[in-house]
């Protein structure tokens, strides 16, 4: 039963990491020890101490408060972006997988086309054209991630098509939309769920990269990526400025990976 234990370990480690980030998010909604843009010229670049447990940055802003508030943007962008991607990906993937043939070819060529823009390039273009803002980042990243979900839906739909109950529904003249929504969609959860969790993690990697470049979440809002880019000039004198935001990002992303690993191993019945 070692694999059972290993899978449990993934759940616990991942769960604790995510709980910390979600705890930060919830706490940040109601309380922060200092204002996130409250500068204090008397306490610049302070190392972590009793008053500022994560230290302060070059403007004297409290890093702990900023970490609390930044969690909400990380969660917001990743969830909203994945939902947007999922909405497009579900429709495109179901239609492509169900119909096959030329419809499938068209959807696949489109999704290949989007996937040919490496990394955050397409999202950067969208932001360059429409201007950097929270909502532009969300839909741009959603668009970048949509093909991934479309592929998952397409291939799993194709696998289901040969099943007897789908064939019978077709013979009985059930409307294709009803077959897709009632008979196919609910059965794809086990394939889609890991993709969604990994999507959340990858979305966060992309979002933090864009915020680092100054093209993601915009000030005065705090984001981990922007905090890191601000900290870069001071990282020798004040390494805590890069340590804590990085730690938050890693907890969130790694937590999600571990949970997806747990989902994967427990769905397969504990096989490696």
């Amino acid at each position, binding site marked *: 039963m*070692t*694999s059972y234990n*290993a899978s449990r370990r993934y759940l616990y480690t991942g769960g604790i990491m995510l709980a910390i980030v979600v705890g930060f998010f919830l706490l940040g909604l109601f309380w922060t020890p200092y204002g996130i843009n409250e500068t204090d010229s008397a306490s610049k670049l302070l190392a972590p101490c009793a008053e500022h447990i994560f230290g302060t940055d070059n403007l004297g802003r409290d890093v702990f408060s900023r970490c609390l508030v930044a969690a909400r943007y990380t969660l917001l962008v990743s969830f909203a972006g994945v939902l947007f991607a999922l909405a497009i990906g579900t429709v495109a993937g179901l239609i492509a997988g169900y119909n096959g043939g030329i419809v499938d070819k068209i959807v696949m*060529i*489109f999704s*290949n*086309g*989007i996937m*040919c*823009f*490496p*990394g*955050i*390039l*397409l999202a*950067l*273009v*969208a*932001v*360059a*054209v*429409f201007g950097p803002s929270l909502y532009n980042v969300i839909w741009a990243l959603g668009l970048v991630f949509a093909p991934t979900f479309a592929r998952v839906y397409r291939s799993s739909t194709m696998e289901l098509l040969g099943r007897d109950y789908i064939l019978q529904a077709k013979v009985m003249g059930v409307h294709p939309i009803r077959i897709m929504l009632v008979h196919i969609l609910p059965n794809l959860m086990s394939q889609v769920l890991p993709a969604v969790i990994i999507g959340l*993690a990858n979305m966060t*990697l992309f979002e*933090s*990269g864009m915020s*680092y*470049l100054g*093209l993601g979440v915009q000030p005065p809002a705090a984001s981990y*990526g922007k905090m*890191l*880019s601000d*900290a*870069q000039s001071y*990282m*020798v004198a004040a*390494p805590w400025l*890069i340590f804590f*935001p*990085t730690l938050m*990002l*890693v907890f969130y*992303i*790694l937590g999600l*990976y*571990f949970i997806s*690993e747990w989902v994967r191993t427990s769905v397969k019945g504990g096989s*490696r």
Partner: protein
Amino acid sequence: MGSAVRSALIRLCEFLLTALLVSFFTFSAFAIIPGDTARVMLGPDATEEQVEALREELGLNAPLAERYFDWLKNACRGDFGKSLSFGNPVGELISSRLPVTLGMSLIALIFVVAISFPMAAVCSRNPGSIKDKSLSTAGHILFAIPPFALSMMLILFFSKVLHIFTAGRYTPPSDNFGAYLASLILPSLCIALPKIAMTFKFLRASMIEFSQGDFVRTAKSHGLSDLRIMLKHIIPNSAVSSITVISLVLSDIMGGSLIVEQVFNLPGLGRLLLAAISRRDFPLLSGIVFYLAMMTVILYFLADVISAVIDPRIRDGRAS
């Protein structure tokens, strides 16, 4: 042979269609700018004459379809027009930045292949062992650190603690090739580490699968040593199946270098791209985007062709 020719033709058609679509995406992204493109580029202070002159220069007065085909025709010849902020031809600017971005991508790819194959080989021999588990966990962690944060940590470690690397120093290859390579090694490693984790994960699974194959059992029964089986039978098979993954990784590496260049202050395509974004230099921006996307399209096509040449099952369209 008929099926091989047919599937090769389908592949070629798909490649051309994707390339066309990518060019259309790039073009339309800059054609659908809300408001007047010329006005957006010049900012609110420009006079009506200046806006009209720029509109004429960019050919914005022609119909959309005509503009697209003109743009495509010129882009295929490597002519993306003139950069508005630098004044130089876009093609010239792009090629002047290539030594950094391509050099980094290539070194990163070498890192990925040279590290992930041995790692996967070690892990797949004893799945579930301590060695396997610790390497797999290390892979997970590497994958979860954003590349720019990883870069900062490595800069801190190598240049401030060990004093063996200076961040932000770049030597062009024409001046001193050794120094050029040295300035790119750490950034390449930062791009490569998360991709090593990704490639490793794939290779480990594929090597475990191959090591349970009939041909490995036969080789064992013939008394071949484990090392020989690994080198001659398992690794080559995994290498063939990993070609697609490697092409994905290489495209990711190019995308990742856009950010990492910024951390290391290297004059590559990523810096040029950001300069183009902040100066609203759309001809330059569309040139870079088109170039990078086309590289990826060609890369995927090459990966497809190489796997088809090596693997007869893919060549005849029997497996996808």
